[in-house]
Structure formats: C-alpha cells, structure tokens
C-alpha cells in the first residue's frame, strides 16, 4: 500500500511518486489525475504496478499513467514507458495481448436531421454486415499468401485488393503499416487464428457506434478535421483479435526463461517478460508485434469497408460516402525520437491503454492535420459521450501520450453480477439510443457503472495539456457482439 503522503502534487492534474520511494525504481512515477480521481486511484493496485514499470531497464524520465489508469497485469492500463533503444528492453507484457487495439472514426456529410428516420435501418444493416461476437468468423478466408500480405503491408494490402482507398491509408497512424513488420516472426498458430478473423469485431468492450457530433469546442481544429455540430459519425473499437493474442502469448512464453536465465533481468512481475531491445529475440518480437499492429489496422479498415457498403445500401449516393477521420492505436510499441539531455535519442515507447497524440507540425501526422495536431479518438462507456481531441506540443512530457477511454473500475464478472443487461437496454432506449446486441450479458459486462466518467478523464487530459478537446460525440445507436 502506498501512503498518500508519499505522493507529491506537481499541479492540479499531475502527481509524482519520487524515485527514492522504492529501492528498485529507476525513474520517478508520474500520474495525470484530478484531485477527486487521485483519491480513487488507491482502490486497486494500479499505482504499485506503475512503480513496477519504473524499474524497467532503460526507462527514461518517468513511468507515466493517464487518468483512465486501472489495475492490469505487468503495467497498469493507461501506462506509458519510454525505453532507450540503445541499452533498454522491449516488453511484450507492457503492450498486452490485444496488440493495436484502437479506434477508427468515420465521418459523413449528413446530419442527424437527415438520417434520423433511418438510424434503426442503418444499425440493423451494420449488425448484419459486420461479423460480431464470439467465434464469428470473417466473410473472407485468407490464404497463406494473403495473411502474409496483411501482416507485412496492413491497409496497403487491402488497398490493392479493393477494400480501401488512398484516403484510408493517409488518415491512419503510420499509414496503416509498420515497415519493420516481418511475417516470418509470427507463428503458424497466430497466422491460422488470423486467417478467419479479418473484418470481425470480437466481443468484450469492442463496439461500433453511430454517433452525432453534439458539441464543437474548438472551431478551427474542428474545421481542419471536417467536423460540425449535428454531423453523423461512426466509431469503431477493436484490435488484432486472436492473431494479436497469440503473438503476445508466443513471445511471453519464449521470453520469460530468456529474461531470467540468459539476460538475468530482474523485474517485479514476470509478465513483463522483457529482453534487450537490440537482441535478436527482441527484434523478432518487435517485427511480430508490428505484424499484429498491421493486422489490427487492416481489421478496422475491413469493418469500415462493410459499414461503407451498408451506408450506401441504406442511403444510396444521396448523402455521399463515409470518409475516415483517423485511426489510432492505444496498445502498441513504437520507435520514436526525443531530445533527452540535449541529445537526439531513439526511444521504444510502450503504450498500454494510452493513445499517441502528436502535436502540430509533426512529420508523422497527415498533411491536412499538420497545422492543428493529430486527431485523438476517445470512446466513452456504453451510452455515454465519446470525444475527439487533438494532439498538443505541450504533451512532450508524456512522450505525446494521452488517455484511451474511460478506464474500468469493475471486472466484467462483477458488472454482470451487479447490473442487468435488459435494464441497461431499457435505460438506453429511454435516452433514444438504439441497441443492437446478441446477448444481454455482454451489455451487462459493459454497464456504465463498470467505468470511470469519461467527461472527467477528458477534462484532465485537456487541462493537463496532453490533448485538446475538439468535439463531443453522443451515441445514437450501439452495435455490440455477444
């Protein structure tokens, strides 16, 4: 248990546990929280887990957590660790099983007024078009050549096959392709799991939502993002499915004995399973993780393709096509350069439940967003608001990272025990939110009571300068798997 008195308040939204709090810490710990949230974060073991992150070899400046922090395994969810490439480690556990779980937002030119009577039809069409839920397989079965193509080239591969357009590629983190991906680093078990799951949503907290832009906070950025009040947008939340889970599993199993016996790396939790980044096994995992990330971007793009087709089926050409605002990961490991002690330093930035949020002028963001910063997509819990934010230069201290969602406060089991899926569906209906689902238990698992308040989480990242609030999105239809 960490005594509250050991934690220093840096400002109204930032707290620090000094480096000397525990002997094995290499850097201090920093947590972005409001005063109210600060009291709550002692309810679970997330701070202890963040201190564990601070012990990782090669970690620079701070072990950082976002306001949606909650207990996970190895790192807490919401954790960020920037590790020096030259002499630091890479940790599969610090990325997690759902590699490149992330968000994509499609925007329309239509308003709620225009599509209002057709939202039910649109939601039902999307439910029909996108394979949802547990064990639901993809409409296309990939051959060996095709799965290798997806792993290597991500959205670029889909573009060649006619499932994506140039704009989809441009408006995606890393243009939907990490170039160091090498499919020979991915096991046949992982590839086989991935062959039947491309374009599927999965279950748990993954969802699709038809939303309305309820409020624009920043006109200039909203214009650059082509967002306006009343506009219909569609949000996609999912990841790399069984393929990503298997990549993580494979490397954890391989790395634990290497970490303990070959490299003699001492960490407080075996689940970090870290090896030197520059070792051959570290490089192999980095390539495999990139494959899973490419698969996840392709997965969200394939779902976007099905949604686009449904949109056109429902509205014809009268309301135009949907276009991608952006697609961004919140579980990933990336190579990024930062100035540290006056020296350009290559860092391996591990983000687990944290979104990359580059500020204006960054070379890695699309040309049309360069003057305002990268779009950041933050989903709320079921039935609550979601947000579009923009990356800020002031986020340099967090290695350009921001929150990824509301943050869980209760397990799915506990939520199912406490909440009734049918009651939640009734409550959503009262708010005029359409719910499409296969199993009411999946609705109970994602009950709003199981999450923090997304408005408070977004307030913190906005006020702390990690990303700027641009627009608030209100759900009109929620589509979930089993």
């Amino acid at each position, binding site marked *: 248990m960490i005594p509250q008195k050991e934690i220093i308040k840096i400002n109204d939204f930032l707290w620090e546990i000094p480096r000397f709090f525990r002997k094995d810490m290499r850097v201090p710990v920093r947590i972005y929280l409001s005063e109210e949230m600060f009291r709550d974060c002692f*309810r*679970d073991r997330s701070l202890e887990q963040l201190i564990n992150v601070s012990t990782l070899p090669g970690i620079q400046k701070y072990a950082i957590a976002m306001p949606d922090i*909650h*207990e*996970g*395994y*190895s790192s807490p*969810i919401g954790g960020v660790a920037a590790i020096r490439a030259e002499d630091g480690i890479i940790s599969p*556990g610090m990325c*997690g*099983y*759902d590699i490149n779980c992330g968000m994509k937002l499609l925007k329309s030119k239509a308003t709620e007024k225009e599509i209002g009577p057709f939202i039910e039809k649109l939601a039902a069409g999307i439910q029909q078009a996108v394979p949802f839920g*547990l*064990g639901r397989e993809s409409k296309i079965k990939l051959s060996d050549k095709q799965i290798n193509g997806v792993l290597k080239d991500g959205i670029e591969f889909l573009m060649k096959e006619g499932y994506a357009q140039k704009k989809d590629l441009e408006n995606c983190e890393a243009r939907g392709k990490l170039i160091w991906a090498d499919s020979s680093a991915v096991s046949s*078990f992982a590839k*086989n*799991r991935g062959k039947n799951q491309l374009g599927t949503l*999965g*279950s*748990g907290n993954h969802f699709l939502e038809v939303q309305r832009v309820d409020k624009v906070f920043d006109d200039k950025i909203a214009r650059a993002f082509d967002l306006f009040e009343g506009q219909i947008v569609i949000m996609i939340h999912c990841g790399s499915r*069984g393929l990503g*889970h*298997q990549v*993580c*599993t494979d490397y*954890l*199993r391989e790395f*634990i*004995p290497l970490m303990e016996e070959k490299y003699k790396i001492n960490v407080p*939790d*075996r*689940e970090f*399973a870290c090896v030197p980044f520059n070792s051959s096994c570290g490089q192999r995992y980095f390539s495999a993780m990139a494959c899973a990330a490419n698969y996840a971007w392709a997965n969200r793009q394939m779902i976007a393709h099905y949604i686009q087709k449904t949109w056109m089926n429902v509205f014809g050409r009268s309301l135009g096509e949907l276009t991608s605002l952006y697609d961004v990961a919140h579980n990933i490991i990336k190579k990024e350069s930062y100035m540290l002690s006056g020296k350009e330093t290559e860092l391996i930035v591990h983000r687990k439940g944290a979104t990359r949020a580059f500020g204006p002028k960054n070379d890695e963001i699309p040309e049309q967003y360069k003057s305002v910063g990268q779009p950041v997509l933050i989903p709320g819990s079921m039935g609550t608001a979601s947000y579009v934010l923009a990356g800020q230069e002031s986020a340099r201290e967090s290695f350009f990272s921001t929150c990824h969602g509301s943050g*869980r*406060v*209760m*397990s*799915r*089991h*506990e939520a*199912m025990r406490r909440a009734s899926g049918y009651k939640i569906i009734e409550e959503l209906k009262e708010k005029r939110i359409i719910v499409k689902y296969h*199993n009411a*238990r*999946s609705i109970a*698992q994602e009950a709003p009571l199981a999450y923090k308040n997304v408005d408070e989480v977004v307030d913190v990242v906005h006020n702390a300068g990690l990303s700027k609030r641009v627009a608030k999105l209100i759900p009109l239809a929620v589509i979930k798997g*089993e």
Partner: protein
Amino acid sequence: MKKNSFRILRHPADLKIKIRGKNKKEIISGAMSAMFVSAGFSGKGKVIKREIIVKAPDFASLLVSFLSHVLCLSDLYKEVYSRLEPLKIDEKRVKGTLWGQKISKQDLIIKGATFHDLKIKEDKNKHLCATILFDT
C-alpha cells in the same frame, strides 16, 4: 468439475481464478475446466478429441503454457474442452487428450493466461492451490 474446486477472486478488470487440487494433475485439468466454466462456455454436438503436448521450464510456466495452448486450440477450432485424459504430467511436460465439443455459448473472450501474480502453493491439508489471472 466439482464446484468447490475453484473460485473466482475479486479483480477490478480481469478474471482471477483460484484452483484447488490434490496434485498437479488436478491443478492442470481443474484450471482448464475452471477457465471455461468461468468464461461461460458451453458445448454442443459430438465429442471431439485432440492430442496435446506442452513443455515448459517449470511447473508454473507449464500451467500457463498449457492454458494458453488450450485457449489457442479453442479459438482456432471453435471448441470447448471439458476433460483431459489420459493425462501424463511431470514438472516440465503435459501430455494428454483433450475431450471437447463445438462451442454453443461463450460469455467472455479470454485473450490470454498471464504470469502476473501466478501462485502455486500447498495449503495446510497438503492440497495444491493455484491462482491465475486471465486477460479478458
């Protein structure tokens, strides 16, 4: 499996299970059953059998590696397994036959069996107790 041979422990986000067994065999097969029961799996149709061999450097790693492999097979073939026999086991190897059916229902996706807080201890009655966290 016996209802009292496992229980779900409180965890703020994921699925944490404690399994009790007389020996390593019961821990291995009990953990598999507990994993599927806790995630709300049911099966239907004819019985399916699959051979399985898993190796690991120690028993704790063996338990996680075995569960991970079973999860992989379950996702790959859309099957749920309820028995593991005949079962041969030592400190570093599990060899056996999984008995299962096609999945008819599942409440949770289990992304992985983790090494986080993994504990295998002997209790005062000389039974083994294992605590495992699953990412869900």
